[in-house]
């Protein structure tokens, strides 16, 4: 059983849930149709009664209600009170060489036509990427595994949940997360992150963000289904010439065993603030324990050896 890394068909079963537990659910966030409206952020906060925070709550400079200057992103990143975060990336990219409008027409520059006289390089164009980030609900969740209190658990839906009545704010989960998702809430002391609306799941409802999303950029459902849908969408985009489209977090062979919340991106992950090749830290835990045991034995041996020989 790949309990610490690698593909794992049923993380809930691995966490003790009996057969017949609900299927693993997740998010497929298709950023190619995201319009950056942030309905997900607001719907999430309204449902989960999260406080407004702004960037101050997660470490960056800036006051609570201040413009970050990061395009239209004023929440900065995921945090203890921001379970959904929409990234905005403004890019100058080479102009799409084939017209997106398939006109099948020859070059339209007429002889002697006025050339666009703007000084900016017309071989490039602006691209504005938007992507709604969220907890990945990893197959192998480092936050869960390092939690010393059992506050973080795998649920029957295969998601990762912080149990607010258990968390003692040790903060271990925070640096354990390879995506920088979970964080400690100022003034509260406990760690918080996306619950995938555990309470709504129990009532047969979709999470608040996916419910609100106007363009179906955020899709919720059984993970198997989402993966199929994502594969089809990727193929469709590739057929349309959107070669830069790629799936992120979909692969069960990746460093975290695949994400419960995965993405279709239009650029490298780090452009959106995502790690390009995350690995769950506990993959190396057996080796860590071995090294630690070796080192502890060395200590024991050295101390014992220090007493060898006569006294002076």
């Amino acid at each position, binding site marked *: 059983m790949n309990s610490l890394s690698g593909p794992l068909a049923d993380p809930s079963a691995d966490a003790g849930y009996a057969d017949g537990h609900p299927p693993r659910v997740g998010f497929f966030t298709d950023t190619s149709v995201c319009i950056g409206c942030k309905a997900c952020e607001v719907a999430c906060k309204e449902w989960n009664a999260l406080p407004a925070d702004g960037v101050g709550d997660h470490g960056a400079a800036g006051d609570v209600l201040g413009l970050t200057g*990061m395009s239209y992103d004023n929440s900065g990143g995921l945090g203890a009170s921001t379970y959904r975060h929409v990234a905005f990336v403004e890019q100058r990219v080479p102009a799409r060489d084939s017209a997106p409008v398939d006109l099948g027409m020859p070059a339209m520059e007429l002889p002697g036509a006025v050339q666009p006289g703007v000084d900016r390089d017309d071989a490039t164009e602006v691209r504005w990427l938007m992507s709604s980030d969220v907890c990945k609900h990893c197959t192998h969740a480092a936050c869960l595994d390092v*939690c010393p209190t059992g506050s973080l658990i795998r649920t029957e839906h295969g998601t990762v949940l912080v149990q607010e009545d*258990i968390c*003692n704010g040790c903060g271990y989960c925070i640096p354990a997360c390879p995506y920088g998702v979970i964080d400690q809430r100022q003034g509260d002391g406990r760690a918080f992150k996306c619950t995938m609306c555990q309470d709504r799941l129990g009532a047969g409802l979709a999470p608040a963000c996916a419910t609100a999303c106007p363009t179906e950029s955020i899709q919720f459902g059984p993970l198997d289904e989402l993966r199929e849908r994502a594969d089809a969408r990727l193929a469709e985009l590739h057929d349309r010439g959107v070669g830069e489209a790629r799936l992120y977090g979909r692969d069960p062979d990746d460093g975290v065993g695949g994400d419960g919340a995965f993405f279709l991106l239009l650029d*490298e992950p780090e*452009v959106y603030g995502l*790690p390009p090749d995350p690995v769950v830290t506990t993959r190396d835990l057996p*080796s860590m324990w071995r090294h630690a045991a070796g080192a502890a034995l060395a200590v024991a041996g050295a101390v014992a050896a220090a007493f060898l020989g006569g006294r002076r």
Partner: protein
Amino acid sequence: MSAPEHRTAAGTPRTRRRGKGRGERLMVPEAEFTSYYGRPIIKPPVWKVPDVPAYLYLGGLAGVSAPLAALADLTGRPGLRRVGRVAAAGGATLSVGFLVHDLGRPERFLHMLRVLKVTSPLSVGSWILAPFGALSGATAVAEVLGVTPRLARASGLAAGALGPALTTYTAVLVADTAVPAWHEGFRELPFVFAGSAMASGGGAGLLARGDVTPARRVAVAGAVLELAATSVLERRIGFAAKAYRSGRAGAVLTGARVGTVVGALGALASGFVRGRPGRVLGAAAGLLLNAASAATRYGIFEAGMASARDPEYTVRPQRERLEARRAEDHPAGSDR
């Protein structure tokens, strides 16, 4: 990119290019580092200073002091026994104190014993620290009150047996994170911590009256182990090593290294100086080793924090790994 004075929203997702020194991997395109407005990818730990560095240091001190004391007891070195027992108990108690103080919800400290998770170094550590604290505490109380020496011996031996584990689980604790400078060093950090713990525990023993030879040996051996392990660490963890060499962490670790070397030499020398001057020199060296040990933990802590705050530490190695894997999958010459 526009000129810096008119930085734009579009310009801020920064791309930094760095020359690569490794000519042997030419098929890997020059590494390009991109981030989202320079923001960290992983969240820096919320652990506070001095709480957590002190917790790491004190755990080491206690973890070595306990077996020192136990063996000193068995070998009839009452001075070393006394100092060791007090250091073990004091270290453990203060260590727990710092840990509780660092919690967001200190009143829920006991939740640490709600589960026993081998996947959580902090859980394992709590299950080590709890009995260790109780045993070393009881031993120290007996020592100070001068009662129940037999029970104290038994509890001291038990604490001594747990001690070595106490010195190294903290290394796993920091290494079992996504913090690049820590995680990348997961093989070496236990030895760094072990060495550092021995240097501090042995150093503490040098404060004792009577024969402190075992303590001196432990201290010097610890210093050597720490220095060696640190050196290996910095050579083996690639880009993340920069975190140990630069900034505040670099400065602190350099100071710690000097302290360790000087302390070790002092400890060695004290063995050759008789009487009070020897004891004073030994004590001074012991204190210096402890300071250096604390500084080592703080430096490592800071190196981790720095590597967490700068997304380059996360992105660059991952990107290189990815590119190398892609190059493997699609050797040069193929289309993709």
